[in-house]
């Protein structure tokens, strides 16, 4: 085999805003989403859910439901071979204590949140399935619950689980805090609160399962994690190779389809009935019962010198896990590691806890703990800047991490941090200030920066694999188990393969997300697919190129290193060329494979004792800065975002159009978080179970976000790329909060920043006298 071939300097496809193949399919509605699928003789599955947030199940009788003609199965916990489901991180190789979490497939004697699954039905029609649900008799005995994480940790609080309500705690201590406070000439502090929000992808959870002709349970499902085939196998007590998950192109995921959704229920119902089963959750069901983003209560105290250099910070975080652990301990870990932001803080303590309550479970959502804390650290930076009279760009430039600096956990930053430039460019990007349209409308500007890890925690030993091969006619096939959530995951991989192998994009077919037929690539979560699977495809394509150019070199009598693959042929410097079909036939004759299976292993490490450290937690981070200009109506408290500039260093933009799309979409989701969205709960009862009550931004609610894409080439991904899926959701809420302060002198530290909250803060300010609205 030839040595690895170096890449040509001039890139043909990478870096180009090429049209995505899946976009073409989607504009003509050719894409078959999970709910657009069906099988002959298919049953319809539904879930019976608890109406109470905390109750004992005294009696559960399915007799009447089973007796309805056309009802094929009614299942309760006792029908489930293994009723506890481990939410270990897929592929996890190192036992990591509190990260291990279990939940019940179906509730046994207790329910712990409103919407918890209690029973399953499969019936000939959806109507019959609903009728059967209503015929299931459940007698609940309501129990006291606990609905606030602070209360949950008080002595005597109702216990959500036997082992107590504290789910996980992480602590970091770095530097000599006592002496550091002595150097602090400006001290600010504040309490910040974030809310429950829903991923609110437009495609609700859905899938179809059947037992294939080989007896393998096959589940075609909208999921970010096809490796959940292992969870289904565990629940059914089957070997893992008897369950197959086929992942569809998703109608959005945002972390909400990272945990198991319908697939375990589909597997159970198909297994019990022997028939194909379809399950589609309604929007109302999804909003009621699916895991939410963790609300955080954050207390910050920050000290700086008179020049504005940070010297000390104390941070206390408390998050609400809801009723089951899911990924809460990991989410809290992300929050803990990033809680001080992208800044050099010599002395810092962080104390972070997450508690069980009888609220809906919380788990992964875009930003994963590292986004909630942005409101904390960037509000503090704004206060420090005002206290020492620095402008927002300067205070961030002064304190920004640089290569070689360490995060509070002790991890050394090994790549370039473009924060000063990002902050300056975003701020300048706002241009000339808008003029107030009326005396009661005030204009203000705010800045917020962030860091977000990409790639999984290093002690999870993450890897991805991808197969790249030529067909005999010179067309190219990529196979990899990557779920495409809509961010262009598959399309970017095609670009990389086509780039390296000198073929046009139209000559590439990609097969993704099939746990039986595509090499496993890991989850489309943690901003890891371009980084991980991009590297796997790059490796496979580069090796494949080496293999076939080795054959070409023999034929042409030149060194393989002098050859290029371009325009569908191996080309020599003297102008001679061998077209791919001819070269591939030669490979076949010589027994040289026309494919390569690339496996990429991320940098690995041992678990870190956060408190004592130091150690590496994440492979690397993506940095960004957003600047916004807002208009605040002092009569109503309404806030309108007039301008929004979002700058991120993405290392290298494989497809700049997709990168801009991630930045714009993430920023708008962040604005929804900052200004509009909230899952409203009253004693654990969800009051926002429709899109008429749970408001996400429409085109009328947000400005056009201007994306600024910086390319430092410093990322760990292919061609120096960094991940950009999650990072843009971090800064907007904090940038808006800072802009509101700039406009009207009140700081609303509680999300979402609704007109009511702004108006109340303005009223309180008037009561105290103008300009004293800073509640810190």
């Amino acid at each position: 085999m030839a040595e690895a071939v170096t890449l040509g300097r001039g890139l043909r496809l990478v870096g180009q805003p090429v049209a995505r193949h899946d976009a073409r399919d989607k504009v003509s509605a050719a894409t078959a989403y999970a709910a657009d699928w069906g099988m002959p003789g298919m049953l319809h599955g539904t879930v019976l859910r608890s109406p109470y947030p905390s109750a004992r199940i005294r009696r559960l009788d399915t007799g009447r439901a089973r007796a309805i003609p056309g009802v094929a199965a009614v299942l309760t916990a006792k029908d489930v071979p293994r009723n506890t489901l481990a939410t270990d991180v897929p592929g996890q190789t190192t036992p990591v204590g509190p990260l291990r979490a279990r939940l019940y497939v179906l509730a046994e004697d207790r329910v712990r949140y409103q919407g918890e699954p209690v029973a399953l039905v499969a019936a000939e029609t959806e109507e019959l399935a609903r009728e059967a649900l209503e015929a299931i008799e459940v007698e609940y005995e309501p129990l006291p619950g606990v609905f606030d994480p602070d209360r949950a940790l008080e002595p005597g609080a109702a216990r959500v689980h036997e082992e107590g309500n504290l789910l996980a705690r992480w602590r970091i201590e770095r530097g000599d805090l006592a002496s550091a406070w002595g150097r602090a000439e400006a001290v600010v502090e504040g309490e910040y609160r974030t809310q429950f929000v829903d991923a609110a992808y437009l495609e609700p959870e859905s899938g179809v399962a059947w037992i294939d002709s080989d007896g393998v349970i096959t589940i075609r499902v909208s999921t970010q994690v096809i490796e959940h085939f292992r969870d289904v196998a565990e629940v059914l007590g089957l070997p893992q190779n008897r369950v197959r998950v086929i992942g569809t192109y998703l109608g959005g995921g945002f972390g909400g389809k990272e945990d198991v959704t319908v697939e375990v229920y589909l597997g159970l119902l198909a297994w019990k009935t022997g028939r194909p089963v379809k399950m589609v959750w309604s929007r109302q069901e999804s909003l009621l019962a699916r895991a939410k983003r963790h609300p955080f209560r954050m207390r910050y105290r920050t000290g700086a010198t008179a020049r504005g250099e940070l010297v000390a910070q104390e941070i206390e975080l408390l998050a609400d896990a809801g009723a089951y652990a899911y990924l809460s301990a990991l989410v809290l870990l992300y929050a803990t590691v990033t809680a001080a932001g992208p800044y050099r803080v010599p002395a810092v303590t962080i104390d972070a806890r997450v508690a069980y309550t009888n609220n809906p479970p919380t788990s992964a959502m875009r930003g994963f703990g590292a986004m909630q804390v942005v409101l904390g650290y960037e509000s503090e930076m704004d206060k420090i800047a005002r206290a020492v009279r620095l402008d927002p760009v300067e205070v961030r430039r002064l304190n920004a991490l640089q290569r070689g600096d360490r995060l509070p956990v002790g991890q050394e930053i090994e790549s370039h941090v473009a924060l000063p430039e990002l902050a300056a460019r975003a701020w300048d990007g706002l241009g000339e200030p808008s003029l107030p349209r009326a005396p009661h409308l005030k204009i203000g500007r705010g800045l917020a920066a962030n860091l977000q890890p990409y790639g999984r925690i290093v002690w999870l030993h993450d890897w991805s694999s991808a197969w790249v091969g030529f067909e005999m006619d010179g067309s190219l096939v990529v196979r990899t188990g990557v779920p495409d959530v809509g961010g262009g995951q598959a399309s970017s991989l095609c670009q990389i393969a086509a780039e390296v192998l000198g073929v046009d994009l139209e000559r590439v077919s990609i097969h993704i997300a099939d746990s039986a037929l595509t090499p496993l690539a890991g989850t489309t979560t943690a901003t890891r697919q371009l980084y991980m699977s991009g590297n796997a495809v790059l490796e496979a394509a580069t090796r494949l190129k080496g293999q076939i150019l080795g054959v070409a070199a023999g034929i042409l009598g030149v060194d393989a290193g002098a050859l290029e693959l371009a325009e569908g042929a191996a080309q020599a410097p003297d102008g001679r060329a061998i077209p791919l079909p001819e070269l591939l036939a030669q490979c076949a004759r010589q027994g040289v494979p026309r494919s390569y299976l690339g496996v990429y292993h991320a940098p690995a490490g041992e678990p870190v004792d956060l408190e004592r450290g130091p150690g590496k937690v994440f492979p690397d981070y993506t940095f960004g800065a957003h600047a916004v200009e807002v208009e605040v109506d002092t009569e109503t408290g309404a806030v309108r975002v007039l301008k929004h500039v979002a700058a991120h260093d993405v290392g290298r933009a494989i497809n700049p159009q997709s990168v801009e799309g991630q930045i714009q979409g993430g920023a708008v989701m962040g604005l929804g978080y900052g200004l509009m969205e909230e899952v409203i709960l009253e004693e654990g009862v969800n009051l926002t179970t429709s899109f008429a009550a749970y408001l996400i931004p429409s085109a009328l609610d947000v400005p056009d976000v201007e994306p600024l894409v910086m390319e430092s080439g410093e990322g760990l991904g292919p061609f120096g790329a960094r991940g950009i899926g999650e990072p843009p959701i971090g800064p907007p809420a904090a940038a808006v909060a800072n802009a509101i302060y700039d406009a009207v002198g009140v700081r609303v530290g509680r999300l979402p920043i609704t007109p009511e909250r702004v108006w109340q803060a303005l009223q309180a300010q008037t009561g105290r006298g103008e300009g004293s609205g800073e509640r810190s």
Partner: protein
Amino acid sequence: MRIALTLNGRTRELEVPPNQTLLQLLRDTLGLFDPKEGCGEGVCGACTILLDGRPVSSCLVLVPTVHGRAILTLRGLEAGGLHPLQEAFVRHGAVQCGFCTPGILLTAYAFLEGHPEADRKAIRRALGGNLCRCTGYAKILDAVEAYAREATRG
């Protein structure tokens, strides 16, 4: 009950249950999956179809009310290839997950038929009833605006 309607230019006679929604008729009975169900209560716009040329949420329309009327779903836009508006969506990166795309394409198409000179602000208002969770809307507006300019020029 029996109804007659025109679906993407073809006249159909159908036996339908009177309590069926148009979305159910299209997806479950006719196997036409262009419209998507995002909320089932007329808020998100993913199930948008054109009823006599006007965009409506098909999840809110009961089938008996469409007797004698003309229905256009996304594939009704195509005539031997993608419609230029669809091409604009591909070119401008207006599609991410794509679940909202059929509804947005139809809403934009119907609006521009009636308002060929519409500017970005007017397009934004017209699309206010179609939610998208992925794109932040900017590239959708880019695509619709670019198509409107091409269409009025051409």
